[in-house]
């Protein structure tokens, strides 16, 4: 399997993020804590074929979010996202 098959965009986690944030998140703007670039969540790089979901900055490839779900719980690491802006 080629890497291009593994990398998806943020629309791939629209449903997962709705479970967590209870609102549509693909239009939210995320600021990368590494390079400072701002991307719509729908346009970030997403890796789903992993023990958890890994979201990376399309500009610098740093991890923006890690989301693990198991045993009825979520674990969400947002240290790579300096700011998440979304409409009410």
């Amino acid at each position, binding site marked *: *399997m080629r890497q291009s098959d593994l990398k998806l965009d943020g629309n791939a986690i629209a449903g997962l993020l709705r479970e967590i944030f209870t609102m549509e998140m693909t239009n939210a703007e995320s600021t990368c804590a590494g390079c400072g670039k701002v991307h719509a969540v729908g346009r970030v790089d997403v890796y789903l074929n992993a*023990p958890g979901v890994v979201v990376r900055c399309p500009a610098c*490839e740093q991890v923006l979010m890690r989301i693990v779900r198991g*045993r009825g719980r979520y674990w969400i*690491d947002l240290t790579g996202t300096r700011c998440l802006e979304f409409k009410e």
Partner: protein
Amino acid sequence: MAFISRGFRGKRRDTASGSRVPPGQHVVDDFPVLSAGPTPRVPLSEWSFSIVGELDEPKTWTWDEFRRLPSETVSVDIHCVTKWSKLDTSWTGVSVETILEGVETAADYAVAYCDGGYTTNLPVDDLRGRQAWIAFEYDGQPLDPEHGGPARLLVPHLYLWKSAKWVRGISLQAEDEPGFWESNGYHNRGDPWREQRYWGD
């Protein structure tokens, strides 16, 4: 048994493979590619492997030096926390025991670090005793980059996220330091026979 339907997962514990498959796992024949990021591609001329941290002096091997270390071919079963297991996989590599020969350290913990930024933590005891390798061949062929080539850690008695792909070194530490998955929900040790998948298992 040549073929096990996914529909029978975990039910036939009396089969030959049953006693080799940890709870909650099913056997696959293919080799799924798991990836938490882009596949790093480092030329062998720029590759090295290091032991750093709690030792008198850090040790580093170039690719050629690393390949001159005594290696061995082993057949092992591997278990991914995403619930697939693959039996009788053949790997060639240098045992971590060999790499740590002559290393004086009081460290109880280790962190494997990798190209691409991935890390995973293990007790040093899980790396010693010829149960962990730095593997560079799979099935007699150079390890494919998608599966962690040029070299990956192989620790088959723990879930496969501990077998870090694209490994470049091991840091020996006095303190345990949770890695990429261990710091965000996944179990600190990851013993598949105890189903240590998540925090609290």
